[in-house]
């Protein structure tokens, strides 16, 4: 049981557990990932290629925005009607011979899966790529129980054989190149010989032969689901390689793990999402294969079908009116492909199963933003807004990021004491339950009751407080500005400020601060503002403002004053541009990563 009572009768908020956490804070992890040149080059290539394709196929549809509007409204409807839709879905799956299970968290879902697999007396299962099973750490859990789960998606197979982690929702092995994959296959894949070349077609053929035997022999398969239809009980899996069709069709038993938010009310809603998903995801008009099935069909496919409805923090996300639309996500990964932060940091830096912009809003909400491991994620964004523009269901990711930053600040300031300690408590309880279920030693963790909010003011708090004091008073601001010439005298011999102490030092890591002007604009205006009108009249005649179309500009006497101040900003800009154009150590021009303001590359 991983929920806590918040004091109101019947009020329970329960956060998720499993692979949803940062192992190290985003900034630290991102710094080390930035050193991985292979990964950065591969991710850069992948994200640019896919987003160009996406732009092309999205541009083909005259009604793309209408489809987005419909998709967004349907998902909103799902959230509002979730209890009745879940009941309806359960009734329809059951009526068609399927079995519906409910899992409050990762540990419970893993427990159900383990019991079902054991009941079949097997120790090997095949599985379709699925974010939900990744989220609950199913493979690791089954491994600890002596059950091997074979990944059948090519990229997931590469990641599994390499004992690595996925780095992208859609192309999880994109951080590996063909030589690395050849090496992994020849070392770890039974039957793959030394004659294996690094040709993608040859490597895919090797995977085909290896997995064909698994498909023909394995009697239990596990899948996720892209959509579940409440009015019919139909489930949908979208894929490319045919491994999904194999897993959904050939084994005798099929177990599907589906997040509760994946429901759609009506079968006809698929006409919207089968258009939105492939174009946003792979940039194809349609993915090669989509499978749909309802319960059990005689003489066609599995004889036994189970679906596990997974909460694991989703109900908690639903409880925040300002953040709940994160549950609309259909896992297309379009937001990853346009994100400048993801492009450079890569998928591993986010820690959680869900990387990129959507991960930065989904992971902290699933675990509760007070879970310290995830409280750096809402800051992993420049708020440029491209993710919102490409999102097929119009999730306003930037606004939710800002909202979560606010939640985080209030947590740190002790303004959300009850919720914060409640969040910590559920997370710790869930982890203990998970550890117990998997038989792993329970990590020594602080007792929920020992969790104390942080009351010590941070460096940022002190800086903001000081700035507030100075700026709220004209006198104090004036005094502060009088100190400018002193600072200027100290800096001028060095040509600018190259280093600042403490947390503001982060600023000077990337840029120098030019020498400030000899006096503040306020001081200058005080001395010269009174006679400015006269000067303008003297310099320009009756013309009060210089005209754009070739009329005379201000004479040097007025211009000099303005220019000195403008120059400070211009110099700062020049430094910025110089750095932006400087080739980075990989020899790639960083400017090449720029796209136009819509985040789309020209078709």
């Amino acid at each position, binding site marked *: 049981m991983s*929920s806590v009572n918040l004091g109101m009768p019947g009020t329970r908020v329960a956060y998720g557990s499993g692979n949803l956490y940062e192992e190290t804070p985003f900034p630290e992890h991102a710094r080390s990932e930035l050193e991985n040149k292979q990964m950065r080059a591969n991710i850069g*290539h992948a994200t640019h290629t896919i987003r160009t394709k996406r732009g092309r196929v999205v541009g083909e549809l*005259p009604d793309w925005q209408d489809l987005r*509007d419909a998709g967004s409204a349907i998902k909103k409807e799902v959230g509002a009607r979730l209890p009745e839709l879940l009941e309806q879905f359960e009734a329809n799956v059951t009526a068609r011979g399927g079995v519906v*299970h*409910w899992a409050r968290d990762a540990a419970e879902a893993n427990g159900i899966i383990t019991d079902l697999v054991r009941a079949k007396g097997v120790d090997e299962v095949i599985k379709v790529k699925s974010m939900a099973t990744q989220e609950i750490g199913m493979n690791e859990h089954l491994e600890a129980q002596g059950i091997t789960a074979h990944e059948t998606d090519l990229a997931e197979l590469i990641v599994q054989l390499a004992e690595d982690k996925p780095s992208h929702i859609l192309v999880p092995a994109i951080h590996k190149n063909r030589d690395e994959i050849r090496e992994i296959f020849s070392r770890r894949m039974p039957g793959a010989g030394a004659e294996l070349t690094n040709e993608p077609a040859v490597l895919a053929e090797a995977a085909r032969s290896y997995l064909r035997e698994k498909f023909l022999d394995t009697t239990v398969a596990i899948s996720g689901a892209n959509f579940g239809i409440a009015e019919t009980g139909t489930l949908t899996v979208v894929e490319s390689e045919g491994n999904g069709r194999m897993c959904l069709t050939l084994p005798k038993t099929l177990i599907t793990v589906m997040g509760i938010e994946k429901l759609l009310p009506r079968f006809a809603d698929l006409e919207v999402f089968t258009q939105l998903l492939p174009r946003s995801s792979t940039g194809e008009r*349609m993915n090669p294969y989509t499978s749909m099935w*309802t319960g059990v069909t005689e003489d066609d496919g599995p004889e036994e079908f189970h679906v596990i409805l997974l909460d694991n923090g989703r109900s908690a996300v639903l*409880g925040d009116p300002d953040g709940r639309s994160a549950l609309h996500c259909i896992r297309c990964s379009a937001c990853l492909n346009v994100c400048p932060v993801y492009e450079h940091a890569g998928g591993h830096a986010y820690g959680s199963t869900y990387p990129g912009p959507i991960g930065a809003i989904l992971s902290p909400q699933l675990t509760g933003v007070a879970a310290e491991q995830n409280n750096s994620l809402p800051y992993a964004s420049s708020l440029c807004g491209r993710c919102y523009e490409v999102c097929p269901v119009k999730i306003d990711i930037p606004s939710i990021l800002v909202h979560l930053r606010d939640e985080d600040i209030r947590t740190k300031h002790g303004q959300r004491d009850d919720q914060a300690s409640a969040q910590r408590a559920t997370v710790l309880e869930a982890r203990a339950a998970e550890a117990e279920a998997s038989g792993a030693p329970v990590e020594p963790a602080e007792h929920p009751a020992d969790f104390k909010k942080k009351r010590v003011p941070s460096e940022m708090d002190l800086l903001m407080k000081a700035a507030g004091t100075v700026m709220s008073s004209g006198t104090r601001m004036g005094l502060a500005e009088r100190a400018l010439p002193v600072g200027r005298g100290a800096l001028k011999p060095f040509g600018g400020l190259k280093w600042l102490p403490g947390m503001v030092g982060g600023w000077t890591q990337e840029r120098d601060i030019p020498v400030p002007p000899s006096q503040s604009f306020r001081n200058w205006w005080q001395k010269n503002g009174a006679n400015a009108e006269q000067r303008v009249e003297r310099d320009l005649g009756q013309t009060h403002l210089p005209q754009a179309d070739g009329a005379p500009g201000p004479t040097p006497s007025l211009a000099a004053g303005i220019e000195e101040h403008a120059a400070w900003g211009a110099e700062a800009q020049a430094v910025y541009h110089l750095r932006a154009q400087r080739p980075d150590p990989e020899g790639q021009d960083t400017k090449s990563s720029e796209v136009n303001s819509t985040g789309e590359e020209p078709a």
Partner: protein
Amino acid sequence: MSQTDAKATILARIGHALRDEPAAPEVPRNYRRTSSLNHDDVVEMLEDRLTDYKANVYRETTETLPGRLRELLGDASTVVPDGVPDTWLPEGIEPVRDVNDSGSVLSARELDALGAVVTASTVSCAETGTIFLNSRPDEGRRALSLVPDHHVCVVPLDTVVELIPEAFERINHADPITMISGPSATSDIELERVEGVHGPRRLDVVLLG
């Protein structure tokens, strides 16, 4: 704790989460739901999209169909669902029916030993180049069009529509559905597209009419 508890707990959590009683919006469906193209253009669009996916596309009539199938199938052992009319099949080709010596349907291994499959189809969407199989007797169960490495799919021209919503109207959701848009493919290695992984590596589409 029991499953009843889990369900009750989750529904209670959701109930609590929705205590602000958000309204379910009216879903705006202003996207295209009926085609404005003439049928010849729609068929041409389907051909173009399928070719783009690296499927091979042929146009035949009921008279020329058997000859085309003979050429496409060669001497491959070919499984044919029971509902496929005999008139489609070339003389001299003895199709494998989906039943083995013991009277049950072919096992996955038996299917794996076969070279090709011929099926019909329910509806095809031109705009996305997608063929829908809906487990009807002339399409067979799902494994038939999956395990053999070569799929010949017959698409009658009157089943071709332009838009996805038009296609979904012709689908029966109670039976299993497979949407096929070209042969199986992967772009998992350095984003280089490889046609043909686990599903049939060769997809021949015969437009019939």
